[in-house]
């Protein structure tokens, strides 16, 4: 086979170039789609600088400059919102990363194929359930008369109001979110592990490395690029702490720790039809997200010599 291919290489190259045009053309519909649905609507961001009235339209509404942003930053709840958003979001990001990576490494150790596959499938499943469906489940589990509290009270421990307490609510959000997402999140890490050259493991084992040492010195370094990639992507969404989850689980009682930028915008912006304000907040979120993503990428390029783009 090899012999046959070598003399053809040059010819194949030329043919490749022409045939690649078709492959590039196949990208076109996707690009047009992105252009129409992702780039053109960005023009709507101009609403953030207007006092948008549906009746007057984007071009007819009054221009108010940075007033909507001033309103956001001068809000006395603003720092509370940012704090909640960051705590919940970073909590999810970091813990999910650790859990997903650890899970991938552990799962990889299972040698029984059917067990490995079924565990994998079972932990993926919650990802596909919507929070609208899961929220009642969480209420039944963690509500004041829920399963967890029945267990606690049968052990003689006082009942804990997980859903209505500012001490526990953020933990509940992070915990349930990780339970839902870690399995799905581990797919990429699992793929990264399988890509590690088994020869390296063998060599390490021959040199007398323990399982821990092999994980630390062989598996993890091989996973760094993919971890950085996932981190860079996730960090761009750090100001979105998961609207659908929080919205379905929170209540007035936990506004103090559970109200995030997105729920606030929904309540104050969209439900009160303050579109300009909602746009301003979203624009603020996007800019912060972009800056963070570029910084992570830049840092990784500088210190780890690896970058997403």
């Amino acid at each position: 086979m090899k012999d046959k291919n070598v003399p053809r290489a040059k010819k194949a190259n030329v043919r490749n170039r022409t045939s690649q045009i078709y492959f590039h053309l196949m990208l076109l519909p996707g690009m047009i789609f992105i252009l129409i649905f992702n780039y053109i609507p960005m023009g709507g961001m101009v609403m953030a600088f207007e006092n948008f009235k549906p009746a007057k339209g984007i071009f007819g509404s009054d221009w108010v400059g940075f007033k909507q942003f001033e309103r956001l930053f001068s809000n006395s709840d603003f720092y509370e919102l940012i704090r909640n958003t960051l705590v919940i979001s970073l909590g999810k990001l970091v813990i999910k990363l650790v859990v997903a990576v650890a899970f991938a490494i552990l799962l990889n150790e299972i040698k029984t194929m059917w067990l490995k596959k079924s565990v994998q499938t079972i932990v993926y499943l919650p990802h596909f359930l919507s929070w609208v469906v899961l929220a009642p489940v969480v209420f039944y589990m963690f509500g004041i008369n829920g399963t967890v509290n029945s267990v606690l009270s049968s052990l003689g421990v006082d009942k804990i109001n997980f859903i209505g307490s500012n001490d526990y609510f953020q933990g509940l959000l992070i915990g349930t979110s990780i339970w839902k997402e870690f399995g799905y999140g581990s797919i990429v890490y699992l793929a990264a592990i399988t890509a590690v050259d088994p020869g390296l493991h063998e060599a390490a084992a021959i040199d007398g490395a323990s399982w821990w040492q092999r994980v630390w010195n062989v598996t993890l370094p091989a996973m760094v690029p993919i971890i950085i990639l996932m981190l860079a992507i996730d960090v761009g969404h750090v100001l979105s702490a998961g609207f659908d989850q929080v919205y379905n689980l929170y209540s007035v009682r936990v506004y103090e720790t559970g109200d995030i930028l997105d729920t606030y915008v929904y309540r104050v912006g969209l439900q009160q039809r303050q579109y300009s304000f909602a746009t301003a907040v979203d624009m603020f979120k996007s800019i912060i997200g972009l800056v963070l993503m570029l910084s992570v990428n830049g840092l990784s390029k500088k210190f780890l010599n690896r970058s997403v783009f």
Partner: protein
Amino acid sequence: MSKKMKQSLAFILSAAMMMSLAACGDNSAEETSGQSKTAEQSSTSVQASASSESVVPEVTYEPLGKYDELVTITFANMLRDGTVDENGDTVTDNAILDYLKDAMNIEIEREIEATDQKDYTTALSLAITAGEIPDVTVVYDYDQLVEMAEADLIYDLTDIVENYAGEASNALWDGYDFDVFAKTTFDGKIMALPRISNEAGTLVWIRQDWMDTLGISVDEDGDMLITREELEMVASEFVEKDPGNSGNPIGIALVCNSGNTSSYNINPVCGSFGAYPWSWIQKEDGSIVNGVTTPEMKEALAWWSDINAKGLVDPQYGITKTDDIKAMFVNGQTGITFGARNLCNWFFNETYTADENARFVTYGLDNGTGKATYRAQDSQTRYVVVSKDCEYPEVAMKLYNLVTEVQSGAFDNEEIAQAYPDFYEVYIKNTGNFTTYEPLNIAVTFGDAVTTRVNEVKAWQAGKLAKEDVTDSTALKYIGAIETMEAGTATPAERVRYDEYLGTKTWVELLDSGTFELQYLLNPATTEEIALYYADLKTLGEEMQIKIVTGEESVDYFDTFVEEWNKRGGQEIVDGLEDFYN
């Protein structure tokens, strides 16, 4: 002829008329009447062009007239869940819609569907933004109506009201001593048909059978009022003895909200202290205040905080939603709540089914002076509007006429019973079914309908009125329920009906004896300041209510709240409103 062609033909016709009118227009004083005439004529010509190819407009105004051919209108209103028991009719498929099709040649095609008012308002908002609203839309949010009028999206109904309003509709409007179109008139033009009802006044609902089992009684003097002390006593008995055997009794379950409604929340008790949270009140000196910031509110919160400390308030206050409270009643966990005179009708029916002994009793809440205070609610809460592009703008008035005619009893006759038996059986014999399932869902009340109803039942009970002579169809149903209750054969639905009658009777008697004291409130449209600050203030207020009621903060936290309130824009809203009203 395609819809597009019809539309363009209509446009050309109306444009031609506009021009001819403009040509012979004389002076500016008559300009307005000239314009409205144009609108009227173009609407009739639209009809003409739709019904036949000939363009000779024939003007006949029939309040319930049948169109020559099937007219399909796009439509938006909130959807109700559930079915009518008898034959499984639903909101989107029922004998009312069949009647509309057969008798009036109107077919309704729903464009916006939502069961939740917030969702509905949001969906409609998007339609307004896009500038494309359905032919006929029911608006629940006054600001949205203002927005639509300002955006010039809706049809000027002035002439249609003039020409197409039926007898019953006119009777409804004349029955009120104020201008029913005041809120829906913009620049002298009627832009929407209002739903009108005067059914305000909150009552305390208590499980009668539980009180009987526990041998407790309230309202010794029989003035149909109970004091807050009595309320507390009942709640504490219910919690202590758990008459529902639920194992987890809850004294008073509450939802936490920042609306000016008085169902299932702390507001009715606040009212008994003279506090009207989330309502704007104008004092005698002209100054304006929001009820949630008044000293009376602090007293009310202190009361709630106190009974919470005694373990009589739902420990999940702030998390509990309306449906949760409904479930608590079905599970026998709680036996007290606050609501309208016919609350049992939609809130407790499952409780009656779940527990065959379940019975409720209603009282007014004594404000300390032997009276029950309640807020005079805005009598107009829904608005029917027609799109400017609608080809048959009078269709909304026809639907409205149908509602008023049916509710006035005009349809309760042999003719209808013969021609439309399904429609008659389910919806005319029980107009409650009709108002629930008719598309506009605007259950109106004729000025004195409820009083008449109760008086008829009383007269029947006293033997002064024969059953055949009872005119009000709901009164007949009350009588039916009373008969089965006395015979001991009442179904759950009849027990609901019976208690609804008792609740209504209490309400009417409190009203007639002057025991209900009305607190008049301002119903301002959203000012710029309200748009800017009120949503934040509501969050602040809800958190304050939770903190004080649950005891997380002492009652004195209220003063901090008021300070915060003023600082965060509350003062600016008040200043704006005072400028507007004074």
